């Protein structure tokens, strides 16, 4: 019995099928999903072939399977993924210490998607996602402090504490949305605005495998195709919609094939360079007037759906550990860079220390900065309140006149 068989047999039925499915799609044994990483001469590029990184729907050709990045890019992507990973770890701890309340959905395991896609985006492209948004918020320009302090509800949070985990915003980043699926037509609307103004930008509208069955997603597909909107619909398929596996929720779990009139690409979402390459391809497609495209990022989340879900009642710990060991986006990328002699382990340790400091500083703010003054609860209801506008508080003796 080889090691692969051992792994497969130990899992619960669903877990085994998930791993088998992802293996089949990758078409090669764990852990090697790429071939021939060349040992680069110093200062050169990491390059390799990833022949199983993509699958196509209604496309004759797709993104380049030969992917590469230079040293600067490699270290940058690594650092960003590590920041997201550590930031989410910090959120996990602060939630358990009751410094974060309500809902908190962690992105750990999915880092290659947000870092890889952003690397292919133009600075004026737009993006919208659902509630598993902290990684995206950081990538769209909000510093770690802005994210962590928003989670703890402080004034220094990116929405001053008014939004919390699910409602973070930045220029060209429309959140952070709490209602499953709502962000998809909203994203198509942002793409509509790009086209209306004659801009050569796209809007990337993300949703999960759970949201993929929402009716409004199909309504958005229809109008995006009819009107050739520059919208990239991206399904971040982490295998589970809350506690329901994609096989139990979707009659057709091939999310990149869900629309019979929009081309789709399945991407190995744990390979950051494949993600970047595929996004470049999709972007080129959409901005050349060919209309929308769908992408399915095959990825995985280590934590449960949210902080109130241990994540082990519907999948096994072994499944989670196996993905960590064999397909982690950060360690696998680091290994490739080391193997190609692009960077050394010491350099990565230095980056890790850097990241640690960034997170610690942000945590400091998140734990010690003040909240908004209570009077601020009446602000920002309207951007244009009428003159002498009064808002009622909790009783007949509490009114606040607001001018903004």
């Amino acid at each position: 019995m080889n090691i692969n068989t051992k792994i497969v047999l130990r899992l619960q039925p669903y877990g085994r099928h998930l791993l088998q499915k992802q293996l089949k799609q990758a078409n090669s044994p764990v852990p090697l999903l790429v071939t021939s990483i060349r040992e680069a001469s110093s200062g050169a590029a990491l390059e390799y072939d990833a022949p199983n990184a993509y699958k196509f729907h209604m496309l004759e050709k797709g993104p380049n399977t030969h992917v590469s990045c230079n040293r600067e890019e490699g270290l940058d992507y690594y650092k960003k993924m590590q920041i997201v990973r550590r930031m989410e770890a910090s959120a996990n701890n602060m939630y358990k210490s009751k410094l974060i309340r309500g809902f908190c959905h962690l992105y750990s395991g999915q880092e290659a998607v947000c870092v890889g896609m952003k690397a292919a985006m133009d600075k004026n492209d737009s993006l919208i996602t659902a509630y598993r948004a902290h990684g995206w918020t950081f990538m769209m320009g909000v510093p770690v402090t802005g994210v962590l302090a928003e989670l703890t509800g402080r004034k220094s949070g990116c929405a001053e504490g008014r939004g919390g985990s699910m409602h973070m915003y930045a220029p060209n980043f429309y959140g952070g949305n709490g209602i499953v699926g709502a962000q998809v037509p909203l994203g198509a609307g942002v793409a509509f605005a790009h086209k209306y103004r004659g801009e050569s930008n796209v809007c990337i509208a993300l949703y999960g495998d759970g949201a993929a069955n929402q009716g409004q997603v199909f309504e958005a597909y229809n109008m995006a195709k009819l009107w050739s909107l520059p919208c990239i619909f991206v399904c971040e398929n982490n295998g589970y919609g809350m506690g329901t596996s994609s096989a139990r929720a979707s009659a057709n779990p091939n999310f990149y094939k869900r629309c019979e009139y929009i081309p789709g690409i399945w991407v190995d979402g744990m390979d950051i360079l494949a993600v970047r390459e595929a996004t470049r391809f999709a972007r080129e497609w959409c901005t050349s007037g060919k209309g929308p495209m769908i992408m399915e990022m095959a990825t995985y989340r280590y934590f449960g759906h949210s902080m109130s879900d241990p994540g082990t009642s519907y999948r096994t710990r072994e499944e989670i550990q196996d993905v960590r060991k064999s397909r982690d986006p950060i360690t696998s990328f680091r290994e490739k860079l080391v193997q190609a002699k692009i960077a050394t382990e010491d350099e990565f340790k230095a980056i890790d220390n850097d990241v640690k400091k960034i997170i610690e500083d942000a945590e400091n703010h998140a734990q010690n900065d003040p909240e908004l003054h209570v009077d601020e609860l009446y602000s920002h209801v309207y951007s244009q309140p009428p003159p002498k506008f009064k808002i009622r508080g909790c009783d007949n003796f509490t009114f606040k006149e607001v001018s903004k």
Partner: protein
Amino acid sequence: MKSVKDLVKAHGSIILLRRSLSLTPRALAEKTITIREAITQAMDEEITRDDRVFLMGEEVAQYDGAYKMSKGLWKKHGDKRIVDTPITEMGFAGIATGAAMAGLRPICEFMTFNFSMQAIDHVINSAAKTYYMSSGKVKVPIVFRGPNGAAAGVAAQHSQDYSTWYSQCPGLKVIAPYSAEDCRGLLKAAVRDDDPVVFLENELIYGQQFPISDEALSADFVLPIGKGKIEREGKHVTLASYSIGIKICLEAAKELEQNGIDCEVINLRTLRPLDEDIIKTSVKKTHHLVTVEFGWPQCSIGAEIIARICESDAFDYLDAPPIRVTGADVPLAYAKTLEQNSMPQVPNVLKSVKKVLNK
């Protein structure tokens, strides 16, 4: 003698548009227009004025609007500004809201507000709350408009009045105009407003003629959102109402005049933010209050008005308990007699006024 060119320059395209739209005879003494014309003109002017404004909805372009509210607009402005959608309210209300977040200024038409229920998550969660949740980072300058409430013989699913549902939500502005002047001024104000606005029209009065001043026909005529209007001055009783309710209030007032009862009719114009000052001032003058609306009684606009009056110093000026006239607390029937008796009529107002005045 002015040439046609000079006339057009002076009044814009309004006159020519009016001529092409108008099929009704004009009173020689004063200008009148229908609600339909008022709304079409207002949309036309705002679309012409600001590149970012566009109209989106079912049948708004090539069909000229299901109720002909956008007649001529597609021919004039084209596909980019007047956009026909598939029958997918949740989808296109979401798309319109996303476009507003990204800086455009959409007018999203619901063929009737009954269909807005399919999209109501976008009106409330995506549009109304976003400015607050983002702490002022993301504005949503969208107008959701369409006919609201009862039509004639369309039965329960097509006759609901959404005034109270939308006016409950902070973050929205909710307008319920009555006259053609209301429609022109308030729709233009709504489009120019940076906040999400729900604009509740009434199909039964789309064809009604209203007198209109030259000032109200000018291109920059806007009315303030959040301010009511005294539609008829009086001293014995305050009738507070909006939209089609004003019609029966004015008819009732005419009849009551003959009995020596002088009604003050307040046209709320905006439901959120509600102009409570105009109602309080009136109640302090008349000492009697009857609210009139076509929606259901439970949690009605009238209930809100009465609560606010009772919570204020205006309560001390009341000589009788304030009461409400509303639609009947039933889903609306189709059969004519049942339908008519499920909606408030002049006799309901007469009875209520006489009751508060103890007559």
